[in-house]
């Protein structure tokens, strides 16, 4: 490896510590800092509409949720099709409390960072509980167990008066330095909050993966018997994978509740669980960049399909309702094609780009 880490190319490690670095080269670190700076700075220079900010905030919330799903499904190899229910647990932790003590209670509107953490904690508790069957179940059987949690969650929320039988539970506007965050600054404010959470969570996942606990996840995924023989506890590892997934999902749920100023059950249905799974798969299972690229890709695809459907409605025959069918058809087709021709997800494109740049201009 080049002595100068600004100009290093290729992978030439002389010890394991080098391999475990978050940033392989200073150039990587520099680029990451510039990228972060751009993410933080762009709203200050561009007058983005509320709609744009809402879409971006939604993507970032999904990124936090998909971190969790990627840990449990991508890194630990455990299929979860109830992830939206974990997100819902976090959302209803805030909303349920708001219903009990008041939408504008100081705990809800002043101590909101604490509430977000509490929602993550609640998600983790539910994650651990739902993860218990993972000690005995695998593959499709485990998938069914997570699906049942999704069903139980939906039923509970929809029928219990405590949760307003699934109807919207409003949450008040939060307070920040300088007073209450008004409608004008709402999306702008939450953009920064969600961005900070997404960056911190991303770094936490990256750090986890280079620790022994992270390596345990991968080892159990690849061969749980071999992992057992090497002194790891596959069962507990799976439970803690679910616990972590639940934590990230819970945090995402709390952010959702605050950003939408309330929670209603229709945002946490099986359809949403499948969408999260599609985000993880399209982004790239078992990769950190995949958790970022997947949500962005799926949301963009959805918006573009919406636009295509609207545009085609102007000239397609009205009686056939083709325009309305275009969106689900197009959306499904793109996902199927993606799975057929790039099953490793968009993270693989990112890997190819990085490899190309890393070796350029063939220094070694």
């Amino acid at each position, binding site marked *: 490896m080049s002595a100068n880490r600004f100009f290093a190319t290729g992978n030439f490690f002389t010890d394991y510590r080098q391999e475990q670095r978050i940033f392989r080269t200073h150039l990587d670190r520099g680029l990451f800092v510039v990228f972060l700076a751009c993410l933080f700075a762009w709203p200050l220079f561009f007058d983005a509409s*509320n*709609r744009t900010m809402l879409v971006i905030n*939604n993507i970032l919330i999904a990124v936090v949720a998909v971190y969790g799903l990627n840990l449990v499904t991508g890194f630990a190899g455990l299929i979860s099709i109830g992830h939206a229910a974990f997100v819902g647990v976090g959302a209803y932790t805030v909303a349920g409390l708001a219903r009990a003590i008041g939408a504008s209670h100081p705990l809800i509107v002043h101590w909101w960072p604490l509430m977000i953490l509490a929602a993550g904690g609640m998600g983790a508790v539910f994650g651990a509980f739902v993860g218990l069957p993972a000690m005995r179940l695998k593959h499709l059987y485990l998938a069914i167990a997570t699906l049942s949690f999704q069903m139980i969650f939906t039923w509970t929320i929809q029928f219990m008066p405590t949760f307003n039988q699934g109807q919207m539970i409003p949450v008040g506007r939060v307070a920040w330095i300088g007073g209450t965050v008004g*409608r004008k600054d709402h999306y702008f404010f939450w953009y920064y909050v969600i961005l900070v959470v997404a960056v911190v969570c991303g770094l936490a996942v990256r750090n986890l993966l280079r620790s022994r606990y992270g390596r345990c996840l991968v080892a159990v995924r690849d061969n749980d018997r071999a992992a057992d023989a090497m002194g790891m506890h596959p069962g507990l590892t799976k439970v803690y994978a679910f616990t972590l997934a639940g934590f990230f999902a819970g945090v995402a749920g709390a952010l959702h509740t605050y950003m*939408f*100023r309330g929670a*209603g059950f229709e945002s946490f249905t099986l359809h949403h669980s499948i969408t999260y799974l599609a985000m993880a798969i399209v982004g790239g299972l078992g990769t950190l960049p995949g958790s970022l690229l997947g949500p962005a890709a799926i949301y963009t695809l959805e918006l573009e399909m919406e636009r295509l459907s609207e545009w085609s409605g102007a000239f397609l025959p*009205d009686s056939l*309702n083709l325009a309305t069918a275009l969106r689900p058809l197009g959306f499904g087709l793109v996902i199927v094609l993606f799975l057929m021709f790039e099953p490793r997800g968009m993270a693989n494109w990112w890997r190819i780009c990085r490899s190309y740049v890393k070796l350029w201009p063939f220094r070694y």
Partner: protein
Amino acid sequence: MKRNMYYLAIVMAVAAGLAFSAPVGAGETYQLGLSLAITGPTSDAGNPYSKGVEDYMRFANDTKILGDAKIDCPIRDDMYKTAVTKRNFEDFLDQGMIFFLSYATGANQALAPDFTEVQIPVVPASMDSSLMKASPYIFLPIASYSHQYVGVAEYVAANHKGEGAAKVAAFIHPSAFGRAPLADFKAAVAAGLNLELVEVVEHGKDLDNSALLQRLASKGVQYVLCHTVQSPVATLLNDAQRLGMTAKTFGEPGKITFMGAHYTGGNDLIALAGTAAEGFHWTTSYRVTSEKGPWTDWQLDMAKKYGRDDKTANSHNYASGMMAAQIAVEAIRRTREAGKKVTKETLYETLNQMNGDKAFTSLAAVGPVTYSVTDRMGVDNVQLYVVKDGVFRAVGEPFKPKYMK
């Protein structure tokens, strides 16, 4: 030079005169917005509703109801998802929307705080009475679900021939929409409406209701009051017909008479249930095309003019969409007529003044649209219909449920 100044003064005077004599807002474009489920759940109602709005807006522009001014009302599909509705709403606001046409109960509840903050008048497709409490800017076009449901229940209480209170079961959609009228219905029973509510059934996606129907029959239920969408009602009616449990006449002893409110009925129900729909009683505030009149002729002409198929043309949801658009256009017209600039605030004022002599008569409904600061439910009357020989026929005159305040 002096002569040039003289001409210039004349030209400026004429220009100033024209400017002041032109109607307020001439040549303006008023931005509205409609977000609803054209695909996804409840799209069978949302689809014709969207066409009703679209056609009436085109008609208003084509016939210059607002003079030189135009209406731009983009229609977006939200797939019955609240998050998408919110995105559409924000998008419309970014475009300068001054009047919002919304759809689902859940989405309206979720957006109610925004409506209040933005102070924008909203006409939803949902007739859930709780929406009026959620925001003072939500104006229901017709009688609430509670009015329609209690209205049909009052008909049962008044016309039941057996001894004692009639035994009824509620068959409702498992959602906020389905449960909306239940509290008012129970309050009406508590207040003296002579009915016995035996069971509340929140239906699932069952394709066979035999067990349910046998259970209700074993409990002596004679009337099933539905509040849901057409397809589960059609399944229920088909099963009842197969089991020979459907009453041939209203309240036939030992059989069950099926009834419902607003979204349970309409031509889609007849198309789905066929002969099993015979005898189904239904309340709504809209006129239906099987009862010919000036409105229905006009509705069918409009549908023909804009190339709609028969199904859409005869749908009460098509009429419903037209009426929502009518209310918005009328509010704009009256605001302009009063010489005010058309804004969210002035439209809100105009709507609140729509009562007494200023009530708006839309022939689409069975009564006038009246709003005030304390009453934001448009048409107060409901009409009972019954399916006879494959079409809905009016039963009696429009009425206002006594047990609803």
